[in-house]
């Protein structure tokens, strides 16, 4: 299915990948695309590695993305980008949050957080490194980090023609619309500069 685009969102349980997947897929549906999205629940919630897969085009069959198939990989955590890099097309794009969440063996001091993760990714594919945590904190709500990354994703996939601000408003809690739209704009803007 050559016309089908594949977006892979990865991160750590609790980072808000599911919300981004929801905003993205609803906006794409409203824009007239056939859309499928797949996520995994349950055990993975407890601080494990999580993924959210969105596929869109004229007609989509499989809801899952295979290795070497993603057009863009958006990683909410640095090391997770490397874990999932094999799912990216060799000519695909990576959007990586410059944000480290140490996993259990690292917290225990058994192993170190790997160094040079961003460099490895940059040496292999077209990469935008975003300091989304910093940007979100400056905006006043660290939790909107996911929407900053969403802005970068929209830019990276050239999906700016869709009225995302309306979709965001519809999908976040009342009262959190403005801050999330500010985060979205910041994400768009920062990827402009890269």
């Amino acid at each position, binding site marked *: 299915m050559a016309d089908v685009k594949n977006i892979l969102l990865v991160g*750590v*349980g609790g980072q808000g990948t599911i919300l981004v997947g929801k905003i993205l897929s609803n906006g794409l549906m409203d824009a007239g695309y056939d859309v499928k999205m797949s996520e995994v629940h349950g*055990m993975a919630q*407890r601080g494990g590695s999580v993924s959210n897969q969105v596929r869109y085009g004229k007609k989509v069959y499989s809801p899952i993305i295979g290795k070497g198939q993603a057009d863009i990989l958006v990683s909410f955590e640095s090391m997770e980008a490397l*874990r999932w890099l094999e799912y990216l097309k060799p000519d695909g794009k990576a959007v990586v949050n410059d944000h480290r969440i140490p996993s259990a*063996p690292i917290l225990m001091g058994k192993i170190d957080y790997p160094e040079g993760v961003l460099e490895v990714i940059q040496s292999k594919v077209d990469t935008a490194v975003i300091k989304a945590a910093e940007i979100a904190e400056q905006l006043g709500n660290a939790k909107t980090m996911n929407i900053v990354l969403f802005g970068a994703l929209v830019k990276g996939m050239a999906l700016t023609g869709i009225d995302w601000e309306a979709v965001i408003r519809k999908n976040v809690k009342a009262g959190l619309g403005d801050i999330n739209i500010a985060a979205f704009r910041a994400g768009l803007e920062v990827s402009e500069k890269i």
Partner: protein
Amino acid sequence: MFKLLTGNEAVVQGAYEAGIAYASAYPGTPSTEILENIAQYKQEIIAEWAPNEKVALESAIGASLAGARSMAAMKMVGVNVAADPLFSFAYSGVNGGFMLISADDPGLHSSQNEQDNRYYAKFAKIAMVEPSNSQDAKDMVRAAMEISEKYDTPVLFRMTTRVCHSKSIVEMGERQAVDKKIYTKNLQKYDLVPAVSRKLHVALEDKLKKLEIFSNETDLNYIEWNDKKIGIIAAGIAYQYAQEVFGEKASYLKLGFTYPLPMDKIRAFANEVENLYVIEELEPFMEEQIKAAGIPCIGKEKIPNIDELTPDIIAKVLLNEKRPLIDYDNTIVANRPPTLCAGCPHRGFFYELAKLKNVMITGDIGCYGLGGAEPLNAKDCCICMGASISMGHGAQKVYNKFNENKRAIATIGDSTFFHTGINSLMHVVYNRSNTITCILDNRITGMTGHQENPGSGFTLQGMPTKIIDIAEVVKALGIDHIRTVNPLKLKEVKDAFTWAMELDEPSVIITRWPCILKKLSDQDKTEFGNYIGTCKVKETVCIGCKACIRTGCPALRFNKETKKVKIDEKQCVGCEVCLQVCPVKAIERVGE
């Protein structure tokens, strides 16, 4: 109107539209969201969490007999629990339309085995439908209800993780007005004594023949003609994967009604194509039957029966196609195993439990299963829900008989205790065992995402209800030695173990503290108060011994350079477990 729905949400929409009036379930991934979502229709549908899957199924059977369209939902291993009523219900048949949703988990995202529940349809001799996306999931509920009522059969509604948890576009519809059917007393149909069942078995075989005729005729099973060099038979998510890989390069026999199989339609399709592939996830359920009917096909000799199927696997084994990949070294990526949350009430309990010598620790299904992982390592085994207590009993009996100085300690949750642990504890008492049973009551069903249960005080649809008191239940079962402890207080936990280990009779230790992620009820707030403040390491006092790190709390981090521990104040909730294990009192509480 169109909406993007998960398969689970779509089934709920289907149930709403098809006039279902009763639904029951026990939570379990990937089925949980079905009942959570159906609960919103408070006027139209009675939605209930049952203590276990057998109870859920039996309640739905009762609702069907009384005349309502009804359903039960569960994960695949839950159907094992509910199998007893299922097999006999096939004999009696329904009054109001009935379906049992089995949500299978190929790839074991969150399960203890990888069983293929399609075999239950054949084994129990009931009809089966298999949706392949959310639109199917919605539409097939109505089909299932009509089939169930027309052919007087329960319908197995078989889903898998990727159907349950994938979103696709669904066209929404209106609720169909369905009158409750009249119930007429009929012992020859509903009272399964041997004399009745003998006759019903004959009738059941006849029903299956009629269902096979239906299977050959229904639009749920349809052919899409393309190139005839390759013909593919597929159902469920495997159909989507086959389309993804072959597109218009193959013709398809897409099956939505998969038991009994439409063998005439399959034969006719096979005769038209040069090569016939049967593409199935997990077991060769269809392939075995197709081959037994004398129709040659290619299936499991190429397609693995282990793990999730993917389009890539199909492309590789059937077309020898492989996509180019980015070549890189991913060995530097560290593991990210799931862990108990910061402030989890299970942590302190398992920290003390791990110190006990000469014990076999039997585990159960829930978050507390993570107590067996590094660094707590406090578990020997886990088989299925409720098994910790009974397995502990059997082990203890053997230790006692062979004079082995060893004790069995069972660890089970509150919801799990209500599920099937109660029966096992009865066994312990009745058969004069001396096991130690630990019921980790975190006031909610945790792992599946906070479902109410008989001990939590609320029903699925939000009604306040009686709280079934675990300590009173345990006492009523005949346990004379019961202690309730706060698992955040390590000394309380330790003393309880010492006390229990010295007893020659069975004992129960109940740890009572809410899951840290739980939205506290008013009663919880009164009993437990609110967490205020966090813990902090006094760096000048910390000696870097890592004692606190061995509690496995994700809020603690050992800094290799400074040889000190730091607490992430964003994660810490001030449970004070680390504070209690520090040998030099380097951890203090801040804020009140």
